């Protein structure tokens, strides 16, 4: 089972978590206080640049029967759609620019260039996903309802098609998101089965407009070039879908992005909430251009800690969050885009299989672990199996050395994970050794038995020969 007690998992006391929360609050406050003209300029310029790219792309596509114009127009439009989706739509709808008090750049009024209505996405994403991040059964973004991304979820035969479902989801990501959000909106508004409910009407209106725009009106406007324009629009949407999919998967499903059980939610303090966001998401390394193109979601950890702080400030927030991770000896999950995606990709394919093919459990798997991961492992400083509620306290008091006596460094989750890795590796090596020895012994036994059988057969043959001679 995934993490039920984040304190125990993180190797922190309630007081530690409280202080950690206060330190994060002060990061938040300092960014809030320094928001100003520069940030406002940043978003206004981004909007202007995005609009310019889009207009340029659409204009170039009037000549889309020419190969180069097609390529150029499609590239411009793809980039425009990516920026619109990631840096503008996503971030503005999070309220990152609400502080400007500008009704045109406000979470309550922004509508994005994606199939699903912004309002439905806001409820599903801002509310369901960001409040209950990675809590199994509460955060519907965990696998988007079609993928099994943690072994906490029971395997069903449908998961066998996961590799295909994954490809399909990537290619049609905006539709996946739209349907997903529509479904959640219907559940939340209590109108799941009413045909003419407001969520249904809103959804129908939005998808009609979006489809008509890219696949009817714009192609029609370009007249004889309608076919190549249509292809260009479809390609731009496809490119945007792939990119959005990749960014989101790298932010949530690489190893190290932990999952939680509903028990963790009970009486969760704000410090624990912060901690859950920190441990539940993952970053990827990006330069300024890639950061911009990902809507600064290469800083997914920072985004999950402060979803409503302006995205252009995440890079500086990241420095301070990393310092906190060092201070509290917490892991800061990051890696190259390729590595992060491959880890997610591995999980998708691994978990397509039934549990009997999986070696690890939800307590110590690469994609999901829990506080039990550290139990039952005999380490010099590790406790035995936790079975009382006060286990976490005892852990810190008696077994786990919170400070390294030699270096004076705090020892927390990061050390524990490293030590557990060593111990688990040692354990695995030992088990392998034992298995190998057993195998050798068995083979030896089999060989002996075979030899005995052979001798026996030879003796019988000799006896038969003697009998025949007589």
């Amino acid at each position, binding site marked *: 089972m995934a993490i039920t007690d984040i304190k125990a998992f993180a190797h922190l006391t309630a007081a530690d978590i409280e202080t950690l929360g206060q330190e994060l609050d002060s990061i938040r406050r300092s960014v809030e206080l320094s*928001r100003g003209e520069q940030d406002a300029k940043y978003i206004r310029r981004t909007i202007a640049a995005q609009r310019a790219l889009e207009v340029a792309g659409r204009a170039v596509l009037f000549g889309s029967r020419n190969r180069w114009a097609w390529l150029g127009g499609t590239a411009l439009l793809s980039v425009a759609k990516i920026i619109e989706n990631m840096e503008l739509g996503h971030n503005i709808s999070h309220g990152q620019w609400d502080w400007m*008090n500008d*009704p045109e750049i406000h979470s309550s009024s922004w509508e994005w*260039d994606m199939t699903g209505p912004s309002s439905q996405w*806001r409820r599903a994403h*801002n*509310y369901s996903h960001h409040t209950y991040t990675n809590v199994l059964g509460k955060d519907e973004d965990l696998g988007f309802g079609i993928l099994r991304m943690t072994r906490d979820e029971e395997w069903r035969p449908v998961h066998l098609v996961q590799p295909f479902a994954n490809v399909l989801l990537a290619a049609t990501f905006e539709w996946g998101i739209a349907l997903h959000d529509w479904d959640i909106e219907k559940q939340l508004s209590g109108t799941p089965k009413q045909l003419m409910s407001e969520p249904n009407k809103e959804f129908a209106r939005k998808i009609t407009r979006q489809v008509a*725009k890219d696949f009817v009106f714009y192609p029609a406007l370009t007249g004889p070039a309608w076919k190549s324009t249509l292809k260009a629009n479809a390609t731009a949407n496809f490119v945007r879908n792939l990119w959005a999919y990749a960014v989101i998967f790298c932010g949530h499903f690489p190893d190290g992005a932990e999952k939680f059980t509903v028990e963790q939610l009970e009486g969760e303090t704000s410090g624990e909430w912060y901690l859950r966001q920190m441990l539940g998401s993952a970053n990827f390394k990006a330069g300024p251009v890639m950061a911009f193109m990902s809507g600064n979601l290469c800083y997914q950890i920072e985004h999950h800690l402060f979803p409503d702080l302006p995205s252009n400030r995440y890079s500086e927030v990241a420095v301070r969050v990393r310092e906190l991770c060092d201070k509290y000896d917490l892991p800061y999950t990051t890696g190259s885009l390729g590595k992060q995606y491959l880890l997610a990709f591995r999980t998708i394919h691994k978990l397509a299989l039934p549990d009997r093919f999986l070696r690890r459990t939800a307590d110590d798997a690469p994609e999901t672990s829990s506080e039990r991961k550290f139990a039952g492992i005999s380490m010099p400083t590790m406790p035995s199996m936790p079975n009382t509620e006060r286990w976490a306290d005892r852990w810190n008091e008696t077994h786990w050395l919170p400070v390294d006596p030699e270096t004076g460094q705090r020892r927390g989750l990061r050390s524990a994970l490293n030590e557990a890795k060593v111990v688990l590796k040692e354990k695995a090596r030992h088990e392998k050794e034992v298995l190998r020895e057993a195998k050798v012994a068995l083979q030896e036994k089999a060989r002996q038995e075979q030899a005995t059988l052979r001798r026996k057969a030879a003796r019988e043959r000799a006896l038969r020969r003697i009998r025949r001679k007589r």
Partner: protein
Amino acid sequence: MVLKKGGFSVRGVREWLEAPAADVAERGGRLNVLRGAVARVTTPLLPDDYLHLANPLWSARELRGRIVEVRKETADSATLVIKPGWGFDWKYEPGQYIGIGILIDGRWHWRSYSLTCPPNWTDPEHGSKRLISIAVKAMPEGFLSSHLVSGVAAGTIVRLAAPQGGFVLPFPPPEKVLFLTAGSGITPVMSMLRAMDRRDRVTDVVHVHSARTDDDVMFRAELRDMHDRHPSFSSHLQLTSEQGKFSLAELDEQFPDWRERQTWACGPAAMLDEIEHHWRDADIADRLHVERFEIERSAVGEGGTVTFGKTGRSAEVDGATSLLEAGESAGVQMPFGCRMGICQTCVVTITSGHTRDLRNGDERREGDKVQTCISAAAGDCTLDV
């Protein structure tokens, strides 16, 4: 949809074409058919979203204006002459006020000010185009009013809201009028006087205006000029530093017919309270029209009465109760989400009064959108929900 129950109709087509621009329909007029048609390809944006990048005034989605002149009135007050953008509602009446938003350090600040111009005012100094004007008096703690009086440059783009308010002079004006103003309370009355002057319908008007010294009188020259040009208009200045406060008892001596006059009063709250009493005692409260400026001040106190405008319900709350809880306890269907200030699902607009962000103590006021789950009332306030 084009096909309604009755089949195909021109009106149906028009409605269908206008639909995407329906939100701006009121202000856009005939342009909306075109706007709606173009919006089919610019969806989810409106054509205005592109146009306003070229010229901020070309957006009817959010009304903008450009300050064309800042004219000093007194040491601490100024008139702002503004050219409104597309879709401004010119059908305002003298005495009404407008909402105006100014960008300072990346943030828009929203306030309401009385229009001082007559309807359909054109200024020959500015190419005889239709313009509007407001007058602003810098308040000691008024961060925005001080900025407007001494910090704002011609050419600045501002946000605007349609003129509104019931403190208006009917046309034709009543035969006998009394204006009682003090300080910046003269601004809505100035619009009324100018309208009468412009239409040459100055009836029997008495204007009593109080200011501290002669230099503090806004529009002093213009008042004197009107006094000279129109025998039926008499302007009386009460300079309080020399003559003391204007006493309502003096009305009987100076303007014995005050009871017969339709009266418009605007100024500090204490003065208006007194006037209201006086008129009620005289049993002519129906002849009195009062405009209470929301004086630009900081949020007062903790907690208060939260009124939910659309539902008409209200709740008494302390300074620690969130507006969301307040609404729910009053049985108002509030939008809600995470209840911790991260998801922006519960955002509503403050119609009047102040609120305070419970996380950091930041103050929010009229025109701001607030997250109700992490905001509490700072004094009485009204929410648009």
